[in-house]
């Protein structure tokens, strides 16, 4: 008996969800002005990619994909630590978190 609950979720659904998450991250990165929100968008993109990794690992019964995910999560954690530190430092220096105003590298 195959019900919705026992049936396998098709591969494409996972990939669509992954693509949707990634695209949301990209859009958020592009349109948000607050640095923290931008940062969160990056995390969203990373997790979208993670989801596709896991999906393929499951599909091909390859454990490498899972391992990649762990790596990505670890890097993301480190990045979060460093990124938040940078954000705090930027806020202290400029008293703002609006990305448009943080343009020290402009010529």
């Amino acid at each position, binding site marked *: 008996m195959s019900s919705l609950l026992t049936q396998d979720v098709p591969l494409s659904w996972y990939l669509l969800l992954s693509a949707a998450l990634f695209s949301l991250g990209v859009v958020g*990165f592009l349109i948000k002005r607050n640095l923290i929100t931008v940062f969160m968008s990056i995390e969203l993109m990373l997790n979208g990619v993670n989801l596709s990794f896991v999906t393929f690992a499951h599909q091909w019964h390859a454990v490498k994909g899972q391992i990649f995910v762990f790596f990505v999560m670890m890097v993301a954690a480190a990045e979060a630590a460093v990124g938040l530190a940078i954000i705090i430092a930027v806020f202290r220096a400029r008293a703002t978190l609006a990305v448009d105003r943080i*343009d020290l*590298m*402009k010529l």
Partner: protein
Amino acid sequence: MNGNLYLWLIPLLPFAGFLINGILGRRLPKSLVTTVALAAPLAAFGVVLNVALGVFGVGGTATSLPWVQTCPLPWISAGTLHVNFSFALDQLSLVMLLVVTGVGFLIHVYSVGYMAQEEGYARYFSYLNLFLFFMTVLVLAANALVMFIGWEGVGLASYLLIGFWFQKKSAADAGKKAFIVNRIGDFGFLIGMFLLLANFGTLTFSEIASRLNANPGWQGGVLTVIALCLMLGAAGKSAQLPLYIWLPDAMEGPTPVSALIHAATMVTAGVYMVARTHVLFDHAPFALGVVAIIGAATALFAATMALVQNDIKRVLAYSTISQLGYMFLGCGVAAYSAAIFHLMTHAFFKALLFLAAGSVIHAIGGEQDMRKMGGLRKKLPITFWTMTAAVFAIAGFFPFAGFFSKDAILYAAFLQGTGGKALWFVGVVTALLTSFYMFRLWYMTFMGESRSPEGHPHESPWSMLGPLVILAALSVCGGWIGIERFAGFLAPAVGARVTEGGSASLEIILSIVAVLVALEGWMIADKFYRRKPERPAQWAALMPGGYRLLFNKYFVDEFYGAVVVKPLLGFSKFFLEWVVDVGILGGAAWLIGGTALLGGAILQRWQSGNLRSYAAWLAAGAAAVLLFLLVPWTAVLANLPAIHLGLAGH
């Protein structure tokens, strides 16, 4: 049979002296600088002397000439061109080596006294050693390219030493003038070398000579061109018409330099080169005639200019040009041994004249104008007597050295048909003028009343007088060896002396004529500058035009300035500087730079500092890469016409 002669030591010892004094000289104590500077030429002279003793069979290593020493490493090997760094010793180079290192050493000793108070003492001696290095390379060269190294090198040393007091603008200018005028001659030498390579495939003198000797019928043609090119080089180095103008200005250098480089050795390199390549000239009679005519013309021309100069060193400079003209005349009438003989005796008495003049200049505090000398006979007895020996030698009095060598040249010229007799006549007139201007110098400097503001002239130290005495002895005795024996010794290297159509009585008659002419020159000078000192001014007033012409050296410098230098400068200024440099080269540089600037100005807008614009470009880029990778472009392009025509469905 020949042991190792260590020929390579002869140039390398002065080179070591140059390196030591040139690099460390400023930090070494003065006595050590002197030791190094004197040891280098003395050791080189010792090596040469050892070789010479071997050649003469008196002792040392028994030697048969010619003898070639080649560097074991090949120097240039490209296609069919092979040039080795090799030295050749024969009778000709041996005589030159003895003169160069011997007189060179004496002048080094003299310089110790003369330059004692100078700022750049070590620099001076390092240059002088460098000169000896290049000069010995030039003399020892077995092929034209090695000779060219020495040739250029002595030019460099000459430039450095003329401009030794480079703070003085006239000295720096004189150095440049010497270098640039020599360039013209070097151009001729280079072209000659290229032609030699093209026609003989080798630059080695002995191979060229044997090839020519194997083809006695090969005359003129390209050989004339080669010989004329080489002669241009020789005329540049030996200050002959029309390239003599650098030598009088070269007197800006220290006096020992004038003695060594611009009288005794370097300027004779041209004569040496003609003698070295004499086989070539023997096969090009036209070029030989040109050499003779240029030599005679230079001898006369320079002697007339020497008549009215008041600077003691300039008189000697013009006299050097004139004597070099004699040597060219000797070469031109194929009396190479006589030319080399005169080269040797001239090295003795002209070096002596310059050194004695230096001693005079030294004694009266740097004054070179003869009008401010006079009466120095009692004050500077040794300088006076040595210089007297040199004056008699250059004027050609028996039995001084100049008599024998000058007569040998004039005699050889006299034997060369009608043209030769004309050249002989020019030579005799020149001898008259020579005698006159040398005794004029002698009277103005040493006789009469003192006209010097310097109250107490002092005799020079013994380091200066010693070389004077030795050179005076050589100026007296240097000719006693006689042209017969000298020519006999040189015959294997430069060919035997030609005495066809001559006789001993003719030779004696010509000698008597020459001595009488010299005596006449002395008498005129005696009248003009001792018995009737008002005469010169009267004569000058009598012929104002002629006097001005002579006094201004025929306006040759002005002529060259207007005809060569000025147009060249104008061309350089307006065409090379404004059109080529500023217009074409500068324009191209600005075009390239401007493009980069413009591109940068456009592209810099990309770097807005706006993080989101960067991210957007990043995303767009990623999308573009994806598009590129995912779309099967080849298939799409192949089907493009079909799609376009709406035929995809068929």
